[in-house]
């Protein structure tokens, strides 16, 4: 259209004209002369104005939904009756407009919700719109950057120093099958085919449980497990390529302070995991966390090959991890968990060699709530930390023993002890306090009034102790969500907003299927919570949530509880001994020292 002709913008609506005002500004910026009528004009008044001003185009808008069809029909009929349509473009847009309806009624164009000015200008100029379809530009973030791990609470630092030094000395004379297997795995990955590699494989098999030995020696698959066929692998490669080619990623964060958002996967099948990861990436997830099957944690040794599993948790094998790694977008953070079980050192080694960005290491939770023997997990955990250092992989330390009933203060003491051992070994741990409705607070009633104060108290307490990154989880809002996807998504979003308000580095979120136990998580349920968190970040922006004064009292109580726990632990010979003794959580509180790998340590 010729730019010397004016464009008439008219709200065919009693009050709403925001969209047209935005369009008016965009048209002026593009060199058009415009006439913007106020709301509540009748069709004949708008048409009269169009004729008098000899405009080249009329853009009418409608926000309200009721009576739209009749009104639009009346307008276009009158425009036609006076001959306006013959030489003037007429388009309709706004929240109440459906593009199909505009076309049916004979408008030259219809613009529904979500239209950007470029689309309307392109219509006027009779060309294709130049839209940016690239999606958000995201970069991978190291969530430990900027933290110096300096203690603000020197008393706690001194206690942790004593426990960590004694524990490292205690562990230095011990090893385990898992530690030995991890080094054999390194050989299996690094050595060329030949006798040395064959010998390493045989040694690996001998250090594994019967279930694993049967797999290597007789080809027997564990229950509910099958190898993926060459055809399936080929189809997956095509699916990943196609999906990557058309990938557009949303960005959840509105302001710099909004945390990095992780989702968890572990459907049992690496293919379905990849599909869910691609859904998560598309809708804004910044990172993904690998969940393995619980039986894998109770078995000495890993399987090999491309394997699918019919139950929760995706089998860790070098090949499965490689498939998942290959599917990730360059900006996606990838965490492989090694926080409990009998294969933790090998898990961290595999994660490092295959290119994970983060891992998860834990001694207290893995022992008290994860079913692994404390002594075994202390020795294995220290080896994990050495690998994490070697591969420059930060890792989080969870406090999931709270879900067993252990008070937050004791769980935090366990987290800080594990983290301090890691710091001594040159690692960069991330503190992962639960941001949930724990059994402890259900009993004590500290969340009776709100879900804000106790969670805020946890962050305040940790911030007063050490300058370290904090990544609440996992997932945030756990035990507050129900099977109602609206409630579940809203609860997740509120916890996300609170976490952001408290300035944490990252959060792990569940899907809206979190509380549903009747079947696997469905892909769309991941979109529910990612969208909800994005909306919460948009809603609060740089504004915050203000806890009540009770949060300060709760934080002081948590710090006092941590000191009390560490003072008792410091009297023990090692971290492991304190874990057996119930100092970091007793059986009465729901913490049971695990039996997986009990009495399995060997002298170096």
């Amino acid at each position, binding site marked *: 259209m010729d730019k010397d002709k004016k464009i008439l913008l008219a709200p065919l609506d009693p009050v709403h004209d925001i969209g047209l005002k935005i369009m008016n500004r965009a048209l002026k910026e593009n060199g058009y002369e415009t006439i913007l009528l106020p709301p509540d004009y009748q069709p004949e008044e708008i048409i009269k104005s169009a004729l008098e001003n000899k405009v080249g185009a009329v853009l009418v808008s409608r926000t309200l939904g009721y009576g739209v069809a009749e009104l639009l029909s009346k307008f276009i009929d009158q425009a036609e009756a006076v001959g306006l349509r013959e030489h003037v473009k007429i388009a309709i847009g706004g929240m109440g407009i459906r593009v199909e309806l505009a076309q049916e009624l004979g408008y030259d164009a219809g613009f529904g919700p979500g239209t950007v000015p470029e689309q309307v200008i392109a219509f006027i100029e009779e060309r294709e719109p130049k839209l940016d379809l690239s999606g958000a530009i995201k970069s991978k973030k190291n969530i430990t950057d900027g933290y110096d791990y300096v203690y603000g609470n020197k008393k706690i630092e001194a206690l942790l120093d004593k426990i960590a030094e004694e524990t490292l000395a205690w562990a230095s004379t011990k090893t385990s099958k898992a530690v030995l297997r991890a080094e054999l795995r390194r050989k299996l990955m690094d050595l060329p085919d030949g006798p040395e590699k064959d010998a390493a494989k045989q040694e690996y098999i001998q250090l594994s449980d019967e279930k694993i030995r049967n797999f290597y020696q007789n080809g027997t698959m564990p229950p509910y497990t099958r190898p993926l066929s060459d055809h399936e692998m080929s189809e997956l490669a095509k699916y990943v390529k196609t999906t990557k080619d058309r990938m557009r990623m949303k960005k959840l964060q509105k302001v710099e302070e909004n945390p990095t958002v992780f989702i968890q996967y572990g459907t049992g*099948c690496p293919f379905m995991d990849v599909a869910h990861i691609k859904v998560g990436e598309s809708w804004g997830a910044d990172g993904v966390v690998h969940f393995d099957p619980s039986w894998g944690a109770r078995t000495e040794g890993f399987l090999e090959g491309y394997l699918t599993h019919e139950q929760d948790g995706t089998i860790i094998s070098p090949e499965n991890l490689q498939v998942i790694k290959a599917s990730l977008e360059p900006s996606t953070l990838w965490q492989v968990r090694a926080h409990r079980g009998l294969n933790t050192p090998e898990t961290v080694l595999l994660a490092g060699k295959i290119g994970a960005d983060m891992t998860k290491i834990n001694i207290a939770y893995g022992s008290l709530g994860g079913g692994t023997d404390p002594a075994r997990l202390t020795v294995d955990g220290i080896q994990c930390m050495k690998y994490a250092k070697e591969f420059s992989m930060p890792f989080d330390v969870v406090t999931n023993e709270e879900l067993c009933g252990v008070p937050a203060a004791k769980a935090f003491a366990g987290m800080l002890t594990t983290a301090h051992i890691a710091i001594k070994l040159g690692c960069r741990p991330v503190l992962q306090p639960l941001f949930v409705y724990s059994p402890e607070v259900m009993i004590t009633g500290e969340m009776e009034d709100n879900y804000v104060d106790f969670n805020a108290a946890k962050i305040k307490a940790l911030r007063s102790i050490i300058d370290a990154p904090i990544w609440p989880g996992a997932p945030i809002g756990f035990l507050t969500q129900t099977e109602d996807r609206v409630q579940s998504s809203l609860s997740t979003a509120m916890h996300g907003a609170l976490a952001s308000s408290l300035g944490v580095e990252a959060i792990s979120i569940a899907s809206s299927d979190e509380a549903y136990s009747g079947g696997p998580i469905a892909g*769309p349920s991941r979109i529910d919570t990612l969208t909800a968190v994005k909306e919460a970040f948009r809603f609060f922006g740089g504004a915050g949530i203000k806890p009540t004064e009770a949060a300060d009292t709760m934080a002081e109580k948590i710090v006092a509880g941590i000191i009390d726990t560490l003072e008792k632990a410091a009297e023990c010979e090692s971290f492991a001994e304190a874990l057996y003794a119930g100092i970091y959580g007793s059986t009465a509180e729901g913490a049971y020292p695990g039996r997986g790998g009990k009495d399995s340590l060997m002298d170096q």
Partner: protein
Amino acid sequence: METCLKKVMDAVDIETFFVCKDEEEGRDLALKLLEKFGLKDTDIVFIEHSGAGARVRARGYLYRAGDQYAWLEGDK
């Protein structure tokens, strides 16, 4: 399998509101509705009855972990 179902990643959810006397009736209606759509591996993800009827979210799984997924076949 119908072409449109082949493109479903994992499950079909149907959300609706049944005018019914209680949760049990709503549950039965939802499962029958899924059956009408030809879905077999079905469950009620969420149901809440209050006065006027039941808000329900019912699900039929097309695939579970370890199955062979038709969407991997692409546009063939």
